């Protein structure tokens, strides 16, 4: 074991030796090392977050034909630090009538919920917080904490706009978790494990090839889970001003903002892990740091897609959003899950390429059937809409004739 093929354990072993050399018992040293690991991981995520502020502003500016931050440091790289400094020196206002404890816990919880996700994110073959064998389940459970933060913030602010934002958040998160859980089961079936690192290791063929539909469903429900446009109903600045965080100022608001960006990037990472081979790439196994690079590139592309969607699409309305989820996305996800399970069983033990081809074709068939059903449905709707229109014209003419 050298630094180059297993950096984290190399450093951990070195620290353990150091601590034991200082006269600690082995157990205390282990706990201390785990603690240091958690702090380092969380710090890395938060430092990355600072960079993401810059990335988001710069990329969006390019989408919108602007320059973005370009004054402070090279390419405006120091702009986020100025932003943070500004937020820190601003007054932290707690509105009169606010429920103080949940009001102050909410922003911390929002950030914590995202940082918790990083615990299971396999950054490279040997670089990860912990390789839980129920990683996918943990992902859903920890992700739901973020929703709790939004509800707390909306409820405790004592503001009607914030409250409506929280209502919407509940409706949205509760419904979109279902297709997300179901699509998470598809990589689980394909990999035969719930461990996220196990899933990456199982992706000799990227799962995006095996199940492209699942990627699309996961992407949509992830955008909803993140609360980004077109699903940013809980913020909806044109309707609810800022939604659940309307009463927050200073760094408390900053934490919500930072949590949102990091959440988006983290989900870009999960997209990469679940469907795009995570850290896999040439020589990633030998040199984990190279895997780290692959992972970040893939996650950044996922994040870029989230931004792309966000700044192109209008916001969906709440009733349409729920209808879309319950009438379309959830049934589709369940059908896809069943088909995947059946094909997986049928092709168990087949050659890799036969298995991949079978899975891909199964997805194509499901997509084709879906499109056909949608087309028939919209045709029926169109006929229904046209039929009464004709009647109205006829009666209109008769009415006029009678009137004359």
């Amino acid at each position: 074991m050298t630094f180059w093929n297993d950096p984290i354990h190399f450093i951990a072993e070195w620290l353990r030796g150091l601590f034991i050399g200082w006269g600690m018992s082995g157990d205390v040293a282990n706990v201390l090392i785990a603690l240091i690991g958690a702090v380092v991981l969380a710090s890395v995520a938060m430092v990355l977050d600072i960079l993401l502020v810059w990335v988001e502003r710069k990329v969006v500016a390019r989408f919108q034909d602007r320059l973005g931050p370009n004054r402070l440091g090279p390419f405006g790289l120091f702009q986020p630090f100025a932003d943070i400094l500004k937020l820190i020196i601003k007054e932290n206002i707690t509105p009169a009538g606010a429920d103080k404890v949940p009001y102050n816990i909410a922003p911390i919880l929002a950030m914590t919920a995202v940082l918790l996700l990083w615990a299971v994110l396999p950054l490279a073959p040997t670089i990860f917080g912990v390789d839980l064998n129920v990683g996918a389940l943990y992902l859903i459970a920890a992700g739901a904490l973020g929703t709790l933060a939004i509800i707390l913030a909306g409820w405790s602010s004592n503001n009607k706009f914030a409250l409506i934002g929280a209502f919407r958040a509940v409706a949205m998160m509760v419904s979109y978790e279902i297709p997300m859980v179901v699509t998470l089961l598809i990589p689980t079936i394909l990999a035969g494990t719930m461990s996220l690192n196990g899933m990456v290791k199982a992706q000799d063929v990227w799962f995006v090839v095996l199940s492209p539909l699942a990627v699309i469903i996961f992407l949509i429900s992830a955008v909803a889970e993140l609360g980004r446009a077109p699903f940013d109903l809980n913020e909806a600045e044109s309707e609810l001003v800022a939604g659940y965080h309307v009463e927050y100022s200073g760094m408390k608001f900053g934490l919500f903002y930072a949590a949102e960006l990091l959440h988006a990037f983290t989900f870009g990472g999960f997209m990469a892990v679940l469907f795009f081979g995570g850290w896999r790439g040439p020589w990633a196994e030998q040199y984990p740091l190279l895997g780290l690079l692959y992972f970040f590139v893939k996650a950044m592309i996922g994040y870029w897609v989230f931004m792309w969607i966000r700044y192109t699409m209008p916001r969906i309305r709440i009733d349409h959003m729920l209808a879309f989820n319950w009438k379309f996305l959830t049934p589709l996800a369940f059908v896809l899950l069943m088909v995947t399970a059946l094909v997986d069983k049928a092709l168990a033990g087949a050659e890799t390429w036969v298995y991949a081809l079978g899975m891909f074709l199964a997805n194509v068939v499901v997509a084709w059937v879906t499109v056909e059903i949608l087309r028939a449905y919209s045709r029926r709707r169109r006929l229904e809409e046209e039929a009464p229109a004709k009647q109205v014209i006829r009666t209109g003419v008769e009415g006029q004739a009678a009137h004359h």
Partner: protein
Amino acid sequence: MPQFKEANLEVNLDEIKHLVSERAIKGETMLLNMGPQHPSTHGVLRLLLELDGETIVNCIPDIGFLHTGIEKNMEAKSYQKAEVMTDRLDYLNTVGNNLAYCLAVEKLVDLDVPPRAQAIRVILTELQRIASHLVWLGTSALDVAAMSVFLYCFREREMILDIFELCSGQRMMTTYFRPGGLWRDVPVEFEDAVRRFIDYFPKRVDQYEALLTRNPLFLDRTMGIGKLTTEQALQYGVTGPPLRATGLAWDLRKVRPYSGYEQYDFDIPTRTEGDVYARYLVRVQEMRESLKIVRQALEKLPYGPVRSNNRKYVPPPRSEIGVDMEALIHHFKLWTEGFHAPKGAVYAAVESPRGELGVYLESDGGTKPYRVHWRTPSFDNLQVLPLLAKGHLVADLVAIIGSVDIVLGDVDR
């Protein structure tokens, strides 16, 4: 020091009881105060909403937060000087306001306007219409959260404002049209700048349409929302695109042409649905039609003077003042006392981007108008908002406000 009795400006629940339903008093529905400081009320409009969940039971607009007293102020200024205030009414239709005012003054004192001035007036007002529709498109796209469209629209609007700056030295508050013609002739670069814009702009409209017109999310948000029938529109005095979206092709440029609009070949886009989407389509089509008018006007832009030769009402050119005693006297009289308008009252109306913009001027024979009244389209169109909003969701309300396209400076004046 005199003691003023403190006025009670707060409205208590008893005073607004008749505006909301019984259920609001019982606490079954929620009263939500939207604005005056709200990102989607397009200025300082306050809406008192009665909500059942997110459904609007009642919507009560409260206006007056941007009251400027422009009408009254204009009565204290001579006819030429009062024009400066007109720009500030509807700040997205500055030259259009100038035009309405100039037409009224010209009607009052019976002034002629040279054909070149008329053609330039048409070009600039049509460019202004495009600029105003661009602001509308950008902000109403922003209301449904299509954020990038907003910045694209403002990019193109800036080109138009550059043309204004080229002519008048000002981006927005131009006061470029004067009673009897224009302030001065356009610079030589004007034609090229306008031509560059009309060659460049159609591609951009296509781009906006590609982003919105067939976008399913946008259709979901706009189709069938805020429906208005022609009868309702006429009852409320709604004019402009909201009226044309209901199916009535009422456009003052066609039905009561002014400034030589009858010479140009253009269509009046109409739709029959009367919803937010119909208003969107009408306005986007209007931008293309305006472009057609600009192109025609530019092609046959006549040469000649841009100001009437009637020295009793129109200041003489600078070159004459140094050599001609009479010109000096005219100049002095016009810029100190102003001109005496004959006794009488006139009403002149133009088709602003928002609808019928009319000026009523009453003269008592003096140098200042005795009464000025503006019939502003935003004010009349806003009245229909409670009708449109009822039964829709809060999310639809912002789309509806955006589609009615109000400018609060125009509402409150």
